[in-house]
């Protein structure tokens, strides 16, 4: 099976984020990491390749820094990478991102495309589904298991409130992968060495520009959420905090 994994670089989970001067995006001088569900998507692709043979290709769109995500994926076992490299890719909405990805792979023939179920920055949870529609492929979202069968694949979708559902679908298809579908591997030293010699195709904005149009949704303003609740902050040495908490548990919340 030939599998494409769409990956994204996002700010680290505990990175302190600051707004830019225009209040429309964050200041970019933070630490980044791979979007968590995308790491599970990559792992699933590598496992499928180990079972069925084939190729795992990773793709990202973003500035030069985003290449780190692809390097790590190559070190873990992906065969080659595609980098749509331009600062402008950061500001694309889900539709334009999917269009850019579709344009970059127009000469490729994949059996499956994986994305993480959503990104930790925008959190649209849309790019994979839109990509499927643009390619004319079926899709399934929030996948917790997949197996190949004679007619295509059988996937396990996570639903709400502890429910699941199996879905049979033909290939090629797009799947959005849920965190926790598998156990992530670490890159080995030899993998890191080999990654340096694996192919990395760069795609410039100009090469996909004709597929894009102005964003259909616009961030007018980004801001720290207004508090809707009055929060009491307790501080001091730990022993003192413990005493204050117990006092509240006992006298205000009456749970002790």
């Amino acid at each position, binding site marked *: 099976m030939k599998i494409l994994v769409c990956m994204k670089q996002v700010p680290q989970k505990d990175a302190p984020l600051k707004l830019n001067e225009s209040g429309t995006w964050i200041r970019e001088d933070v630490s980044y990491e791979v979007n968590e569900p995308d790491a599970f998507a990559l792992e699933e692709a590598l496992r499928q390749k180990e079972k069925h043979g084939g190729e795992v290709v990773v793709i990202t769109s973003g500035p030069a820094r985003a290449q780190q995500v692809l390097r790590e994926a190559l070190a873990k076992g992906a065969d080659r990478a595609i980098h749509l490299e331009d600062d402008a890719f950061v500001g694309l909405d889900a539709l334009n991102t999917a269009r850019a990805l579709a344009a970059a792979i127009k000469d490729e023939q994949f059996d499956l495309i994986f994305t993480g179920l959503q990104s930790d920055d925008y959190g649209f949870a849309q790019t994979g589904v839109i990509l499927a529609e643009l390619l004319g492929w079926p899709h399934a979202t929030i996948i917790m298991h997949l197996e190949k069968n004679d007619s295509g694949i059988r996937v396990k979708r996570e639903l709400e409130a502890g429910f699941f559902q199996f879905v049979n679908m033909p290939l090629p298809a797009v799947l959005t992968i849920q965190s926790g579908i598998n156990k992530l591997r670490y890159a080995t030293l030899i993998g890191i060495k080999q990654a340096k010699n694996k192919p990395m195709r760069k795609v410039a904005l100009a090469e996909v520009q004709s597929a894009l149009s102005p964003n259909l949704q616009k961030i007018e303003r980004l801001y720290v959420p207004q508090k809707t609740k009055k929060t009491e902050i307790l501080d001091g040495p730990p022993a003192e*905090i413990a005493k204050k908490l117990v006092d509240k548990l006992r006298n205000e919340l009456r749970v002790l």
Partner: protein
Amino acid sequence: MPSILVIVEQQQGKLNRVSWETIAAGQAIAADMGWSVEAAVVGNGIAGVAGEVAAKKLSKVYALDSPKLDRYNPDAFAAALKQLIAAKQPTLVLMPHTYQVRDFAPKLATQLGRCVISDCTGYKKDGEKLVFTRQMFQGKFSADVSFGSDGPWLATFQNGSFRGDKAEDGAAAAPVETFAVTIDAAAVRNQPEEWFKEAKQAVDLTQAEIIVSVGRGIKEQKNIELAQQLAAALGGEIAASRPICDNGWLPMDRQIGSSGQTVSPKLYLALGISGAIQHIVGMKGARAIIAINKDSEAPIFEIADIAVVGNLFDIVPPLIEEIKKVKS
């Protein structure tokens, strides 16, 4: 008059309660903008649900009733709704941000040449302009987002953003119109099977009065023990955010959030939980929330009643001792 179309959700003839919230959202926007509100029900054998929805203050309810819409399928649902939207030309289409809507709404919007502003928590009328508020960066920021094209605009609302019990009843039942859809069986590619639950849930956290919940801040599996001691001292249940269960540090049936259980205990004590949206939707109904986290900007503090900014490993051991003292 511009109209709002609310797409409600049902499973096997039973309305998903979150639909009332979306109707309440539609009614609120309509009142602010001077628009009308209609609703649509999609499925097979849905006359009962359509009738239930029609009791609300709506100008019309469309029933998209077909055996081909019996079990949810993205191809069939998108095709049916595309026909309705093309025929009725609503300015705004509202949906609840459920797993099912997440599965078809981006596809539907793409087919319409439009976009979805997803997972909104509210809206604002900015002059004549309608902007939608949504969380970004895992809840660390809010964003006001506007549509960059003409309608139909599509938006989904996060569970709990509006109060379902505020959905207004109509003076008389709204007319229910059957809207016939054409679905080409050959164009429906996915073959879904029945819903199922993995295993019987051993614990029903919805009944717990006190919940001690752990997140990534617990760092290692062996530290779960500390949280368990705290839960035991308080006479409560232990629970966790998704990553902890993904790691297998606690069983999946201890998970709180959109993919786990939704709880509303008297006390929810969050240890090292940052408060991603997916977790918060499962516990924001708690009567009191105490959060201990070393990151002062963690979104969990936005909804906490009592915030302790500090290292949980420093605070929890003396807290357990104090509780034991008081109890003895």
